[in-house]
């Protein structure tokens, strides 16, 4: 177990406060969650932020399936999900949101996909878990929930109240099963 329910909620609160520190009232800022798992992070952060600021925040979801660099290197083609960005990102400060930052390749695809929608004034990255020392591309997050050091064989699973029943982050190691 990396984050239990209590710590998970605290982490999300801290991340939202960090966002408020840099983005003040979010007048120029949009949040974009990467499909599929970044969207969960987005919806929880949106809730916290909207309660704290008492206003609606522009949010979108981005599907990166067709921008991946591992198409045809996988056994099966990936199933695309929905992109929903019904506003202009031109001259906006964009915060990309995902659950786990690992090799950095997903974020690279996300940047490509995002730029097909226009030219934002800046792009930042927020992740719940940063698996350090496993990067294959020079990409770092601006907001990190928790940084962990992991082995390649291990798997980090971020679970959500709405889907798995509990907000928690678990590290799976192949030999022992649950840590």
């Amino acid at each position, binding site marked *: 177990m990396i984050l239990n329910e209590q710590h998970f909620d605290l982490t999300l609160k801290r991340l939202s406060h960090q966002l408020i520190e840099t983005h003040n009232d979010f007048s120029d800022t949009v949040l974009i969650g990467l499909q599929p798992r970044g969207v969960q992070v987005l919806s929880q952060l949106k809730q916290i932020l909207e309660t704290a600021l008492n206003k609606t925040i522009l949010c979108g979801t981005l599907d990166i399936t067709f921008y991946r660099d591992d198409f045809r290197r996988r056994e099966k083609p990936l199933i695309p999900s929905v992109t929903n960005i019904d506003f202009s990102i031109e001259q906006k400060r964009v915060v990309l949101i995902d659950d786990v930052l690992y090799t950095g390749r997903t974020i690279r695809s996300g940047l490509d996909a995002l730029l*097909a929608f226009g030219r934002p004034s800046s792009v930042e990255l927020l992740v719940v878990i940063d698996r350090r020392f496993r990067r294959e591309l020079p990409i770092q997050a601006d907001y990190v929930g928790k940084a962990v050091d992991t082995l390649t064989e291990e798997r980090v699973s971020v679970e959500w109240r709405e889907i798995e029943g509990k907000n928690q982050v678990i590290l799976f190691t192949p030999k022992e099963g649950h840590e």
Partner: protein
Amino acid sequence: MNNLSVDNLIGIKDLTREDIELIFSTADSFKQIINRPIKKVPSLRDITIANLFFENSTRTRISFELAQKRLSADIINFSASASSVKKGETLIDTVNNILAMKVDMVVMRHPNPGAAKFLSERVPAKIINAGDGTHEHPTQALLDAYSIREKLGAVDGKKVVIIGDILHSRVALSNIYCLQKLGAEVMVCGPTTLIPKHIDILGVQVEHNLQKALEWCDVANVLRIQLERQDIKYFPSLREYTMLFGINSSILESLEKDIVVMHPGPINRGVEITSDVADGRHAIILDQVENGVAVRMAVTYLLAGKIER
């Protein structure tokens, strides 16, 4: 289920219902992409596709070309009139020469039924059939069914009548397979001479009265009278055909419900369909064209996923 059960798209006959539904759900994503300001994704940037058209085509070729370009594939176009086919080269030789230049996928239209299957058994590239004679035209049937699904919410349980030259039509055959696999009821309607004798073994109803057919159906797919494929006269005159089987606004107004009118193009205005119907509120002809690009992107994308590196 996120992979097609086939390696080439020769005909709808080889597809399963799951395949068709996978193509549709992928096409939904592509339809979203082609309505964005930047209509292009980089998925197939390392793939080369040859479009071999041994028979004339405008719509299908442009549609395939756009689909390939929007997936960032490299493409080469070939039409029989400007090639060595005129000098007597065989189909296999032509294709093998093109493949020797490292082409991964071939989209082919050919006047001979079975040409696509013949090729798929002999060359390593992925083949997409863009119409082989009077046999099949799978992507047209897919986009027709996709358009019905979009307009009416589903294909399952709908009643579709295909009107016109069933005998010479590859669109009709592919449509029958596709609609039946998706759970629709199919009827064919036309002059006796243009309906194949034992078509009822495909499980379709046959009707020779246009009024009755239209009263039965939810969707009417009107086919073009293919004058170029008719070496003998199948009906006395175009005028008589129009009187008996032409869709006009007065016959549509006489129905108790609104039906959807489709046409795969090119339209012979004033023959199988009048201008006011083709441009009117029943027709979804231009939606079919738009969906054609999305559906062809989906098919190309899914088949390209099976190319080995």
